[in-house]
């Protein structure tokens, strides 16, 4: 794209044509993005599930003879921590916790928030007003602060972390879905369905939801990245998984004191978070372009 554009109509047509061609090319590339993301995530899930087969070490067994072994030591591919525990084993077993949060927390908030937003947007009127003010209130709190406060009151544990995320994170889905439902309500296909005398639930779930779900599904991938980072953050602050449980954030917090001499204690679990984050981000990007490309 040059800075000196000619302004003739034929040039404008050319511009539109190249734009369309560019979009087509990028759809193929995005499909690749989606596949790469799914493969990366699938590998991670497999590795975490097959942890007992892949590594012989126990993630919590202390080996006082081999503390702080650097990566590529025989028997310890990623080295050991200050207690001589194998870092690869801890990352694989810890991944069970982090991935469970990415899926468990995200799935629940996705379903609840979507239903809430759908009902609020479609029913409209006073019910919508009241329902959205509730969303406003939860939205007013910085997520991390509210989650920390809830965990603080309930007591730090993995389950309470789930509860805190469930209480706070559905609101984003509710907002996105409501906006979609408000628009869809006025569109021809919905009007047609209503004119046919279909019931409210039928119009909402059989007509509006399938046509508008792409927005929340794309967002859920971004949200999953957020939830993984959140789980690691709470673990890091000592408010999530409790030691000696091998959660990634807890591992990073443990390794912080050894940062000057043994960087791998902090670097390895951080890279694990990054790996999962990137695979979800790729899936989200790929989905976004695929689903949007399907729309006019």
């Amino acid at each position, binding site marked *: 794209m040059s800075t000196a*554009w000619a302004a003739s109509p034929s040039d404008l047509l050319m511009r539109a044509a190249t734009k369309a061609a560019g979009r087509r090319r990028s759809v193929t590339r995005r499909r690749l993005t989606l596949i790469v993301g799914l493969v990366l995530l699938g590998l991670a899930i497999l590795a975490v599930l097959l942890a007992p087969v892949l590594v012989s070490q126990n993630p919590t067994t202390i080996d006082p003879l081999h503390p702080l072994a650097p990566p590529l030591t025989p028997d310890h591919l990623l080295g050991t921590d200050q207690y001589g525990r194998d870092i690869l084993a801890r990352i694989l077993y810890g991944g069970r916790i982090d991935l469970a949060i990415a899926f468990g927390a995200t799935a629940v908030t996705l379903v609840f928030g979507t239903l809430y937003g759908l009902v609020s947007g479609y029913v409209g009127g006073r019910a919508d007003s009241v329902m959205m003010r509730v969303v406003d209130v939860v939205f007013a709190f910085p997520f991390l602060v509210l989650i920390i406060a809830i965990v603080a009151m309930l007591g730090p544990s993995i389950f309470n972390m789930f509860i805190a995320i469930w209480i706070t994170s559905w609101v984003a889905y509710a907002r996105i879905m409501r906006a979609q439902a408000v628009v869809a309500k006025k569109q021809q296909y919905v009007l047609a369905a209503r004119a046919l005398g279909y019931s409210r639930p039928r119009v909402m779930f059989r007509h509006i939801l399938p046509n508008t779900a792409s927005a929340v599904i794309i967002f859920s991938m971004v949200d999953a990245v957020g939830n993984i980072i959140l789980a690691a953050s709470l673990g*890091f602050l000592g408010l999530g998984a409790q030691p000696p449980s091998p959660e990634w954030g807890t591992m990073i917090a443990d390794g912080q004191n050894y940062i000057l001499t043994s960087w791998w204690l902090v670097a390895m679990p951080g890279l694990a978070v990054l790996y999962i984050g990137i695979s979800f981000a790729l899936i989200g990007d790929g989905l976004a372009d695929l689903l949007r490309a399907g729309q006019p």
Partner: protein
Amino acid sequence: MNRFGTLPRRLFHTVIALFGITLVTFFLLRLIPGDPALAILGSSYTHQRAVAIDNFLGLNRPIWTQYGLYMGRLFHGNMGFSFFYDEPATTVILQHVAPTVFLIVYAGVLAALISFPIGFISGLRRGGAVDQTGRIFFTLSFAMPPFWLGIIFILLFSVHIHAFPISGFGAGFIGHLYYLFLPALTIALGFSTVLVRSLRTATISALQAEFVDTARMKGIPWRQVLWRHVFRIAILAVVAVYGVNLAYLVGGTVLVENVFSLPGLGTLLVSSVNDRDYPVVQGITLLFAVIIVCINLLTDMAQAALDPRVGQEIGQ
């Protein structure tokens, strides 16, 4: 139509939100399993103090009376008593406000400096070098836990090349700028992802708008079209993103303060959780929410003032 036409409604919503916030923070303390008085006092438990707390929270009265008491105290700036610091919670909290506010503003400005040029150029030259590199770089920084990035920064810039201090707040304005550079950069990089993306999208859609074609057909120089029409509209979109993502900035601050041991609200929040200093946790939560609601209102008003089209849409 008056561009502030929906303002009264926005104000009304803000008041309702503030009311809801006090409800949430009020019920926070009731989430504690067991006896709140026992939990609040912890090791400083004595029978007299327990009775004093029961009276203070009104635990033996109906729940709506308790809420009334809570609201009455809030209007006097009383957020309860911190038995850990042996001071009113309000005093403890106010002592920690300055570094946090400084860090949030600093990170916000850094994020703007990083993302405005990159986002705008990415939108102008879609698929160009800046766009591609930026996309990869910001996908990485988005998927990175901010606290981890902070530790890596300390390792690289403080330990290996001694360019920046490991922790501390510094003295004076310049001192703050220097000491808080790495923490602010850590937060800003995460935040930039969102800004770059929205600025890129806004630029692209502004470029496709008909008023840009009109301006060009009128023979206005391209550079001027970019500045006066495209960039102005794109920036407006980003103002909204700033307001919505303020919560992200605050969350990043809480984490990064703990990594760099800064004497701010985030560090206080986490240490209060560990000390079971519930009134302070409750107070910080309330303070953050109130600030965010007020800033969001200001962002909306700023947008309405800058962009006549917004006044009619806000509050829908």
